[in-house]
């Protein structure tokens, strides 16, 4: 075995002979048509196309298939033997608004007070965060960055993982209104917190009516920044993403959302399999936030969390798989779906849980989550299925930009590989 290790080390040394650490510079906008040819195209929404071509212009897919006419000036890239997937979507994390968890000055997640429907993550999104590159090279090309804390935390946004500044990186703002369902373990506190949630929504709704009345000639009603942000929620334009894990939280949130007549997405959903029928009958989707973990009750099976996606799938509940809250671990997203695949979910659905399903649930289906004409050219070129550990993500495109594949992990590797080489040369 030792000899094989030495041989491999030599091989790796040669592979690592990339000259200088690159600067992770954002890529320019797509300026010429690009065609990826010869690869296996996983459209996700449709068939797998073997030996296909995908053509994109100005960041948008213009043709896809086995018989694609390329406009003149198309830059062709032969990707024979490779696989093309839509970019992975982390449907819940804190990318760009937290850098180092233990250093408060680097985090912009929890605004003061319990009710902050007006805050928007994209406006505090740090494009220089080193985790953006780490996510990109793991194939995560969209992050639905979400605020936290309090009762109504604020608005999440779908952020693209390439660009110079937050404005051009924002795929969609106001994706969801994040709400933290209260802890049910103390009856009195639970009652108070639910009452507060209901009255918050009632206040916001009465504001909306007052403003509508004003517009129709009624009495003047002054502007309220917070309640203004709630209007799209009542008008069905912005789902409420309710963090709820325990069975009571999930079921109580369903009833609440029904009474409030708002669109509900369950976030977390640890016990969601216990009320799967209820979720299915109301067509409420679940964003599962942690698969690669263990149950919090000793009597549950050791694989309870790994098996949750498969259970929801069998029960006909719509779901997506998200990473964790920590931006630093965005590279683990594929493995979260991988664990689900080891415990009952098919690979096909596991990949969908990172692409098509979150795109549908979060209203991004027209742009990302699948490879179709008219959708964004946000895609990966890999040597295999993106949820398998051994798979290498070789190149990504974000709205047609060919992104730099350097990230801080690799940059540190290359810099200190140079130190090892220098020391060995000195000897």
């Amino acid at each position, binding site marked *: *075995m030792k000899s*094989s*290790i030495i041989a*491999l*080390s030599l091989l*790796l*040394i040669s*592979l690592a002979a990339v000259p200088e650490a690159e600067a992770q510079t954002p890529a320019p906008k797509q300026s010429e048509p690009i065609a990826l040819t010869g690869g296996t195209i996983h459209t996700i929404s449709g068939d797998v196309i073997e030996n296909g071509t995908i053509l994109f212009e100005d960041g948008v897919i213009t043709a896809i298939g086995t018989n694609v006419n390329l406009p003149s000036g198309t830059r062709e890239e032969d990707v024979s033997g490779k696989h093309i997937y839509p970019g992975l979507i982390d449907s819940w994390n804190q990318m760009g608004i937290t*850098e*180092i*968890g*233990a*250093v408060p000055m680097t985090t912009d997640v929890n605004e003061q007070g319990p009710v902050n429907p007006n805050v928007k993550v994209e406006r505090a999104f740090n494009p220089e965060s*080193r*985790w953006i590159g780490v996510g990109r090279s793991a194939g995560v090309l969209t992050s639905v960055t979400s605020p936290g804390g309090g009762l109504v935390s604020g608005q999440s946004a779908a952020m693209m993982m390439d660009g110079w500044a937050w404005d051009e990186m924002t795929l969609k703002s106001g994706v969801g209104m994040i709400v933290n369902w209260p802890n*049910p373990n103390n009856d009195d506190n639970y009652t108070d917190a639910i009452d507060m949630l209901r009255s918050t929504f009632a206040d916001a709704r009465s504001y909306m009516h007052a403003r509508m009345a004003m517009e129709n000639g009624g009495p003047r009603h002054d502007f309220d920044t917070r309640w203004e942000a709630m209007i799209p929620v009542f008008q069905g334009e912005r789902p409420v993403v309710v963090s709820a894990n*325990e*069975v*009571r939280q999930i079921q109580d949130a369903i009833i609440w959302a029904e009474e409030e007549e708002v669109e509900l997405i369950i976030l977390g959903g640890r016990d969601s399999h216990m009320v799967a029928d209820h979720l299915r009958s109301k067509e409420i989707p679940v964003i599962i936030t942690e698969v*690669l*973990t*263990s149950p919090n*009750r*000793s*009597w549950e*099976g*050791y*694989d309870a969390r790994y098996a949750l996606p498969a259970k929801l799938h069998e029960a006909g509940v719509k779901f997506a798989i998200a990473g964790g809250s*920590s*931006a*630093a*671990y965005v*590279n*683990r997203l594929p*493995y979260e779906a*991988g*664990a689900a*695949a*080891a*415990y009952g979910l098919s*690979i096909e659905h596991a990949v969908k849980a990172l692409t098509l399903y979150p795109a549908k649930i979060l209203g991004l289906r027209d742009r990302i989550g699948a490879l179709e004409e008219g959708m964004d050219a946000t895609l990966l070129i890999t040597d295999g299925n993106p*949820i*398998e*550990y*051994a*798979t*290498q993500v070789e190149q990504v495109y974000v709205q047609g930009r060919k992104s730099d594949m350097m990230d*801080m*992990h*690799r940059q*540190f*590797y290359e810099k*200190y*590989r140079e*130190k*090892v080489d220098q*020391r*060995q040369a000195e000897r």
Partner: protein
Amino acid sequence: MMNSYHDVSLQIRRVGKSISLFAMLMILPLTIAAQSFTSPTDGMKVNTPGVHAFTNATIITAPGETIENGALVIRDGVIEAVGSNVDIPSDARVWEMDGKTIYPGFIDAHSAVGMQNPRSELDRGNLSWNAQIRAHLNAEHEFESEGDASSRLRSQGFTSALSVPPLGIFRGQTAVVDLNDGSVTDRLIRTGVSQSVKLTRSQELGFGYPTSPIGGIALIRQTLYDADWYERAHETYQNNPSGLQRPENNAALAALRDAVHGEQPLLFQTNNDEEILRAMRFTEEFEVTPWLRGNGHEYKLIDYLSERNVPLILPLNFPDKPEVDTPEDALGEDLSVLRHWYLAPENPKRLAEAGIEFSFTTDGLDNPNQFLNNLRKAVHVGLDKNDALAALTVNPASLLGIDRTHGTLEEGKAASFVIADGDLFENGSRVLDVWVEGHYNRVNRENTTDARGRWEIVSTDASIDAELHIEEDRRGRLNGKVTIKGEEIDLESVSVHDASRRFRVTFPGEEIGYSGKVRLTGSISGDDLFGWAEVPGQSRVQWKGNRTELPEESDDSSDSATIDRDLVLEDIRPAMEYGVKSIPSQPQHVLVRNATVWTMGEQGVMENADLLVTRGRVAEVGQNLSAPRNAVVIDGEGKHVTPGLIDAHLHSGVTGVNEIGNAIVPEVRMGDVLNINNIWMYRQLAGGLTTAHVMHGSANPIGGQNVHVKMRWGSLSDDLKIEGAPRTVKFALGENPKRVGSDRYPETRMGVEQIISDRFSMARDYEARWNEWEENGEGLPPRRDLRMDAIVDILNEDILVQSHSYRQDEILALIRLAEDFDFTIKAFHHGVEAYKVAPELAEHGAGAVVWSDWGGFKIEAYDNTTFNARLLHEAGVLTSLHSDNSQIATRMNWEAAKMVRAGVDPETALGMVTIYTAQLLGIDDKVGSLEEGKDGDFVIWSGDPLSTLSKPEQTWIDGRKYFDLSQDRRMRRAIERERDQLIQLILED
């Protein structure tokens, strides 16, 4: 009858009605003090005779020995005669005991009597340096009679008790006292019975070392060595002090002399099953005599305890009902809690049936008056009454060394006994009187005044002529009806004041034409009542009553509804979900056929290969091996087999991980606090983990010693340890050790480096002094300092350093420091920046134990890279992965798989959770690869262990199958069933 007897409390009552309870308490000790041998008589000499005969009683003289219609004669506090044919002395006062039962007085083998206000601060005298060491305190010196628990203990039938000092780790010496009220001078039966020890610190004594269970045990160990040294040092000094430095005079160490030689028992107060094992472990190292104050979990250790003849003192503090009020509450209760609720009352029975002897204590009860109730519960679920009585009398008497005078009712023994109105081990009976060394104490009044039945009431003016019907409900409360002027009216209240025989009833008068309540009050004399009434709108009316019908005697056996005991719960270990009846058997031969075997040794990865494990060890890996006779053959077609995975850095399965009371604590040992009640162990087995290095935390530049364990689910904690594994110690650099406390040195990385360096120097001096003394034997014997011993071993590489680290500078600093002291650091853990000093690590010979992709969570972790392990490996550093996390430890194969994505070849990647890990932990002679002679620890995977799609199907350790996927599924169903049954029982209760 009784109130004519001379009795302390009644004497006081004669002083006058107005006397307050407080004043009574003040006077009580004075009255009792009249008994004292040396105190002068105060006031009038009391010469009431102390001769009493109790006749026609059922007398239980000892467990299993009953005299019907017997008599007991006592004289001046001592039993003069007992038997069925006893002459009653002419000077005796005779007590008619028909229908009553007399038991020997109960002995509480572990009480806090007299210790209600312990001194937390000892601020003078020749004390120990550590506030938790109070071995020199004596219960009798600390004893406070006023407000002690005697009367509460008597109410449960106790007449004597062991008084145990309650604070500290070494708490002081215990004493047996009788439970009369009054000065301990008169009550003391025996002193110096045992030294009281608790394994953990008392908060009341202030913050400081030891802050943790590991530290507590280390302090006990060090103190025992100190006590031994202390005796020898003083001996040397006494023999010839000339030229010698005078050794310290330490009262606590002096007080431990007998305990260290096993001549005085160490009475350990344990709080759970693990603490019992922890206490017992001292016997392996010291010649101490342990006694155990148990905790109700002993039934989990029956096999262990029946092999050891250790005195056990059992509390009867049964757990509260688990929270299952709502289905959601029930979801949150673990099986261990549900099971313990059901099984705790069976604890004494199970021990008795296994032949294990024990004594009882009220210790642990919120209030001692719950004792009899719980005792009856224990009897109800099967504890033999004789065993119960023995645990209250002869067993504690013998244990506490008072059996010549206490424990049975025999001629010549102390007149301490209990009078009950029935069988005390059955519901419905009551303790009436408790005689303590010849002193009468009333507990419950015998209901001499019985108001129940039908009474005919005739008043002088006929205005309230009536019939009263008085009944008693199941809780003993009186109620009833009055029939008057043709109306039947419910009584609003009925009361009887037994001492004065006064009887009162109240009922509304409106229905019979009065404008308010009618109140009758009177005195009962047998079946006659004489009274007067307050009638609204009339003057007081006199009346007379006559009982026309006696109450029906109800059968009491139906009360105290008890839960259905049909549910039989088998003994499992650990006593929780997935617990097993025994560890799995070890087949002589196990042969896995036709699998892809990752040997992680010279044979590499072999396809279509067979693995043969014989008597728990790897015998051979090869193709087409022939199956030995009786071999268990497993078809491995399509499967992969790897060595059991190893986690180099784990903190689960221990009670507390950090001793923060001192910056340098290598004397503490994680192996002292293993805890099998740990669901993670099962989950880790399910993930293919077979071995882990369980480590001290990162609060100290030099932390504690770690322990190598195998996931032998179902074993006792001692059996988890890997025998022959080298000792290792945790160091910690960077942010964590410098931010513990605001005034603890060090607070910078500079200080971290210096305090380590300073202790290294100290240890070299310590070693030199020992060597000198061993050569020439001159001077005082040196003290054995376990902390210094450990550092000497570190410098001599007998203990391997495993250092927590993040930044490159601190890693380099420890390397250079070790080089200054001429030894090698075995491995740097976490090492988020280890890749930055990879050449230096390789040159020093240190290994690296790192995360696959953990980082970014704090500033010193910001420069993490998933290529860390790869670069270290490429630079020639022996590199392993670790979890530092109970959950990640359940899937170390996937941690290795991430390395494949980072560019490491699969075999090397798997090596980072098997053979390289074993090498870094110094256990590669036993585990880490499938090579002949190594432990039969292997995992059968559904596919490639580095694929996201694979999972373990079987996990074997020592040639025993500890995890099996299909068995796991069966156990889940059984767990659901058992939970359901227990929840139903709780709802019914």
